[in-house]
């Protein structure tokens, strides 16, 4: 089954409203059930099987009109199931209705002819019976055969155009449907018109002369046969001609090629009619499309180079940020310290305090520069995915924090066997940021508790770092991962506001998500997937 892309743009192409569609359908059913009956009866009268009094007699009795009306209502009811999905689709053009409409359209022809032929067999029977019952008509055995034959022929001749009109009705909707194979082939249409119709007309003429002359000779049969053969042969030649015209397009229908890499070399017109011209136009359109695609690729290449250049520039920029911004900071810090050491005697307490503030600020700025550099590196560096042992990674990170602040009382539980496939260096940064935060924001707790583990949600591993620290207000959770966004003042907890932005960027580069839950004063839990 083809999953259609029934887009709203396509639906706009449909000019027909549901009501219009329904109306046309009812009209066609009425015509299909009345016209053949009327025509058949007239023909039977004209060639003399029935006389005019018998015809009027049949029509004046309740049986024949009732028969036709009941059949018509039945047909309306029966075909409704094929029409309703199309109407629903026109009312609400979504994918489900589109599929249903398509299914019904493909089934319609077979069912139409089954029901119609049933009608054609039963209608003459009803004519003969009502003629015998209500008029002086007496049917000979040969009449049973001939009347049925005439009915069949007449109905097919009249039924064909009606059938085609029905198909055209569906054709009005086709523009917005995902038509993956033809509803009816042109070959069938041509054969029906080219062979069936002449064949039937031929038979009717024979019928006419048979009745008029009263006999059916071997010669009549031969003439009939020759005409039939000519009709079929001629029709086959037509079909052949159409087949040839259509073959280049037919191949496309059969092969369903990938138009993104399609060569038009074999798409050549094989006729000089409209279909040939159409094939040529189609080929030109595809060629032009290809050309546009090539241009687009060139454009993308160009843009990619441009982006690469910008990226290189950015890299050079962050390099010099790393180098050039830190150098003056070192001088600020270094010489402040030199003043403190060499000229402490000449400064009062306020002066010394100012100097320590200068040093603190320059160190904060150094951290900020480092964090920003890390953030920009995270975006630039290539992903080298490998299997990473998160548990041992966490242990190592925690060891570092314990070394720096050995006096803190922090209870840490790291679940065993945490593993994922990711870029080790980058995941290290994520874990370092999350554990670092947990460490930092539990700074005011008497007994700090941090746990690192995993849970499974929707079949996916979700890793978490949980603490019992200060936490944050969930109302600001969307600010949490923004660059330079902080939910605590520098006096409460130090920090640059870059760490979580970096973590988020890393997680996103791995196609994962990161989020947090917290209650103020009770701690926070950070979750991430990779």
């Amino acid at each position, binding site marked *: 089954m083809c999953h259609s892309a029934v887009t709203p743009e396509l639906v706009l192409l449909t000019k027909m409203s549901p009501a219009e569609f329904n109306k046309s359908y009812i009209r066609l059913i009425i015509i299909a059930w009345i016209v053949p009956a009327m025509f058949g009866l007239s023909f039977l009268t004209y060639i003399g099987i029935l006389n005019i009094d018998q015809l009027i007699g049949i029509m004046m009795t309740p049986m024949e009109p009732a028969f036709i009306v009941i059949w018509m209502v039945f047909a309306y009811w029966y075909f409704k199931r094929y029409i309703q999905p199309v109407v629903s689709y026109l009312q609400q053009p979504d994918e489900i209705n589109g599929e249903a409409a398509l299914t019904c359209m493909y089934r319609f022809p077979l069912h139409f002819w089954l029901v119609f032929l049933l009608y054609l067999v039963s209608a003459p029977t009803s004519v003969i019976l009502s003629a015998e019952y209500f008029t002086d008509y007496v049917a000979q055995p040969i009449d049973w055969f001939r009347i049925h034959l005439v009915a069949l022929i007449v109905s097919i001749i009249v039924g064909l155009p009606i059938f085609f009109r029905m198909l055209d009705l569906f054709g009005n909707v086709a523009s917005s449907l995902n038509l993956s194979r033809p509803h009816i082939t042109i070959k069938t249409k041509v054969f029906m018109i080219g062979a069936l119709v002449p064949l039937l007309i031929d038979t009717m003429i024979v019928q006419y002369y048979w009745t008029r002359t009263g006999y059916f000779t071997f010669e009549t049969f031969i003439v009939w046969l020759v005409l039939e053969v000519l009709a079929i042969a001629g029709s086959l030649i037509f079909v052949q001609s159409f087949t040839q015209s259509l073959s280049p397009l037919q191949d496309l229908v059969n092969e369903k090629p990938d138009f993104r890499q399609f060569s038009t070399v074999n798409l050549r017109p094989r006729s000089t009619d409209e279909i040939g011209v159409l094939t040529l136009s189609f080929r030109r359109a595809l060629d032009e499309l290809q050309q546009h695609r090539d241009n687009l690729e060139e454009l993308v290449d160009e843009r990619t180079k441009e982006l690469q250049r910008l990226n290189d520039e950015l890299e050079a920029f962050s*390099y010099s940020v*790393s*180098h*050039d911004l*830190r*150098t*003056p*900071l*070192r*001088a600020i*810090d*270094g*010489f*402040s*310290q*030199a003043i403190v050491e060499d000229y402490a005697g000449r400064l009062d307490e306020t002066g010394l305090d100012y100097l320590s503030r200068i*040093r603190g600020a*320059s*160190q904060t700025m*150094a951290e900020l520069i480092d964090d920003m550099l890390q953030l920009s590196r995270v975006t630039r560096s290539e992903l080298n995915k490998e299997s990473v042992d998160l548990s041992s990674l966490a242990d190592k990170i925690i060891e570092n924090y314990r070394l720096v602040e050995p006096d803190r009382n922090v209870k840490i539980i790291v679940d065993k066997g945490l593993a994922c496939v990711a870029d080790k260096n980058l995941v290290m940064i994520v874990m370092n940021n999350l554990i670092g935060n947990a460490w930092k924001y539990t700074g005011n707790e008497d007994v700090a508790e941090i746990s690192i583990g995993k849970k499974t949600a929707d079949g996916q591993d979700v890793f978490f770092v949980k603490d019992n620290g200060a936490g944050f207000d969930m109302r600001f959770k969307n600010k949490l991962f923004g660059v330079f966004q902080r939910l605590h003042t520098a006096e409460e907890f130090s920090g640059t506001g870059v760490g979580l932005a970096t973590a988020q960027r890393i997680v996103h580069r791995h196609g994962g998500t990161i989020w947090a839950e917290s209650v103020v004063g009770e701690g926070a839990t950070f979750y991430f997937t990779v």
Partner: protein
Amino acid sequence: MQKTILLVEDNPNDEMLTIRALKKNNIMNEVIVARDGVQALNYLFAEGEHEGRDMNDQPEVILLDLKLPKIDGHEVLKRIKSDERTKLLPVVVLTTSNEDQDVIASYQLGANSYIRKPVDFDQFIKAVGQLGLYWLVLNEAPKSASLR
């Protein structure tokens, strides 16, 4: 006679701070300062303004910044390490950058150590003290390091 230290540094502030940090660590070796790559190479190879210098008297350790005018640190490092006369001299890259590419390039060119200058001056003093202790006291250089 005490060996010298060659400090290759273009920034006068950093030069002053490094010398101060050496002094704070009681490293009293004479510090020769080269302010760009050309000066550094001229000194080591006794060329240009240093023509006629005794090439047997090479520094005990070279402290090399990477970002330098004229000839950058990597190029200086390459010349030192590719010349028979100087390739055994210990070179400590002392720079602001911690970009991976700089660290890797430095070691590939034969740097003996790579130290990122911390902004915190206390840490800077510690770092200089440790590298002084290591390269000037603990490390046993080949006797003829300066010769070949």
